[in-house]
């Protein structure tokens, strides 16, 4: 028995009852405000007014400004958002570990997720900004960070930073994923995954397990992957094409559409807003181009979930708590190792299995017969 999961289905906010819809409404409203609300930002004004006032400078850097009448107002919404995000992950991570902290794997990966967010997702950009340097989120790579190679980023990107992003996006992570699985990114580093694993933990069982959802997922996630790489191509073409070429307009409107539809609405408003009714990894499962790319590599890599032969009692804990909607039980019942592109390697299926049937492994495939032999021992 996994004591922390006991009340999952007795708890209104975890079971799509009215409190869940209220939370979803609040989250959606929050994200609409975040992406489409106006912020009171004027860099020149800020520099002039606050440069010699340490208290106000500090507040500005944290996303607030002190008005002349003494009231506080959101100044830079993105820093405010990063702070809230980190707080949500830390608090969610605390509650997640109250349930699953008896597992070393879950402890380590939750520490990693929260630490990456706190350091690379919040503090380092703040410090860099403080020092007057360009602030980068060093844990987001292409194609998840779709605007990494947009001119407004490339124009002031130092060569070492550019090297980091290019090498990690196209060589480093793919290699890590080949040897250790997609989980290296999705369940240990990524901020989106991190929020799902911590703040979103009370809703992980809501993922749709039907084969219809699986078919939709395969089409939608790979479409986004294609759209992201098409955009990369356009950005390059845009940079190479002579001035006045028709491609500039097309590239700009394409980038705008992708930013709006995928970057803001899908990954933000829906991806997080729908946690309480659709499960936590809706974006990761149906939309994230990074997950799609790493998933294809995982499919050919070493990571899989090994199944202990003929020990499954079909209880369904694994499938219920799979946030990616994988019907883990159907594999376990057939003694088939699980090698699915979508698996983010969170390890929850193995953790909640009451018979210890599942194990996340990265060794080479066992030789044929290793898992199929019938042993009838005659003493």
């Amino acid at each position, binding site marked *: *028995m*996994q*004591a922390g*999961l*006991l*009340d*999952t*289905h*007795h*708890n209104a906010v975890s079971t799509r009852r009215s409190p869940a819809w209220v939370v979803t409404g609040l989250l959606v409203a929050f994200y609409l405000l975040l992406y489409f609300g106006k912020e009171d930002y004027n860099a020149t004004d800020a520099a002039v007014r606050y440069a010699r006032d340490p208290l106000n400078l500090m507040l500005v850097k944290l996303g607030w400004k002190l008005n002349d009448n003494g009231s506080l107002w959101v100044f830079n919404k993105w820093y405010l958002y990063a702070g809230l995000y980190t707080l949500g992950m830390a608090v969610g991570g605390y509650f997640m570990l109250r349930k699953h902290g*008896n*597992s*070393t*794997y879950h402890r*380590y990966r939750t520490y990693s997720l929260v630490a990456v967010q706190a350091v690379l997702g919040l503090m380092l950009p703040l410090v860099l900004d403080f020092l007057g340097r360009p602030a980068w989120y060093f844990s987001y790579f292409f194609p998840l960070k779709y605007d990494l190679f947009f001119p407004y980023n490339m124009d002031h990107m130092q060569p070492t930073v550019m090297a980091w992003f290019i090498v990690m996006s196209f060589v480093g992570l793919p290699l890590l994923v080949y040897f250790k699985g997609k989980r290296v990114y999705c369940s240990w580093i990524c901020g989106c995954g991190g929020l799902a694993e911590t703040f979103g933990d009370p809703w992980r069982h809501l993922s749709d397990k*039907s*084969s219809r959802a699986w078919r939709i997922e395969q089409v939608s996630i790979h479409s986004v992957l294609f759209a992201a790489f098409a955009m990369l191509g356009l950005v390059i073409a845009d940079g190479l094409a002579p001035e006045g070429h028709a491609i500039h307009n097309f590239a700009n409107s394409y980038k705008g559409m992708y930013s709006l539809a995928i970057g803001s609405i899908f990954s933000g408003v829906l991806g997080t807003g729908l946690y309480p009714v659709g499960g936590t990894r809706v974006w990761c499962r149906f939309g994230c181009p990074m997950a799609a790319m790493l998933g294809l590599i995982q499919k050919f890599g070493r990571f899989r979930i*090994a199944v*202990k*032969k*003929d*020990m*499954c*009692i*079909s*209880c*369904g*804990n694994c*499938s*219920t708590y799979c946030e990616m909607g994988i019907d883990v*039980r159907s594999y376990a*019942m057939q003694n088939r190792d699980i090698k699915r592109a979508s698996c983010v390697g969170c*390890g929850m299926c*193995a*953790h909640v299995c*009451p*018979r*210890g049937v599942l*194990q*996340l492994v990265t060794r080479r495939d066992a030789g044929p017969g290793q*898992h199929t*032999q*019938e*042993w*009838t*021992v*005659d*003493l």
Partner: protein
Amino acid sequence: MHFVVVGNSIAGIEAAIALRNRDAHAKITVVSYEHDHPFARVALMYIFCGQMRLQDTEFYDRELYARMRFERVRDLVTGVDPVAKRLSLKSGSYLHYDRLLLAVGSVGRRLPWPGAYDQPGMHHFVTLPDLEGVNAMAKPGMTCAVVGGGLIGVESAEVLHLRGLKVHFLIREPWYFPVALDNAEAEVVAAHIRHHGLDCRTATPIDGMERKGGKMVLKMPDEELPVDFVVGAIGVVPNTKFLEGSGIALTPGGAIDTADNLESVSTPDVFAAGDCANVTWPDGSRRPEQIWYTSRDQGRAAARAMLGDDVKYRRGTWYNSAKFFDIEYTTAGFIPFAAKPHKHQGVGAPGEEAHWQTWYQQVPGQAITQRIVCKDGRFVGFNGLGTRWDHQVFMRWIHERRALDWVLAHMNEARFDEEFVEPFRVLPSATLVDGA
């Protein structure tokens, strides 16, 4: 050919699927009383405490019947007439069959206290109606007794405790789960149960029960214990009452007596699989096997027999696993103390002299133990608490007749735990004693 399968749990549904996979045209009818869809009975405890819904325990998608073209009959079979080849149903209708599979499972063994079942308050934890009964009864703050030190006992004690009831876990035997654990291992489990706040008592026989002032008072040698209700978990018995008088041979324990091909020894064209079937064990004894994976295997074997194959059902080397609160348990091979009262569970001829040795260690301060049993210097059995092991690896080593030192040196190859856990080490406190 019309195949009728009574019971849609793992034995019945696996048989029906195996029948369809081999015979695309036969008419296959699946009769079930509890639920429209196959569900994992072993997960009742998770439904009770809200970790899963009943729907989550359904182990096939709901389109299975349509895809496999199974006729669904939702009814209770009240009798079998093997001469007319028909079943009588509770609804009053009849169902004809050409070949019949009885996969009707078990019900909780009733406690032998006079009048116990005349009034509400006696519960079991085996079927969906049992679950509904306990669920309606159990309110936080109540006091209840779970009687019987086996797997169903520990599971129901755990979930009742987690719901906020005061649970008395009463075990007749001198230690918990004596068919599988020895004294030292059982003490680790019992200490863990007590640590959770339950009143876990061993060597506690109950002489009877009487009702006083709305309470059920359990009579024990030194004490009378008043409780609000009782969960009887002293084992299960085949769910075969409806077969009495049908002419289908039952054992004294109520199991459907089957031949090697799982066909009734008395009645042609009637087969049995799962908990209700009396089968031959590796040691030659005859009794039901009440285990999930053997029920599945029996269902598949019975299906082949129903199709006319020459089938001989034999379970391989023993293995199993369980979970006692947070402590996971894995066993493989022969643990002789676990064989009682079936003393010679395939471990040599009765009366044969053998040199038994038992290697045992517990990680200090933790509910982690390993036990390795050797016969004449060769590895024959393993028991492990608190960590995960691959029983298949142990069974291969048993088959390869490995020596104790070799096994100890290779133990980490059999680990099935998550990453970052402590590897297996031989501790200075490990003991090796003669005798099993």
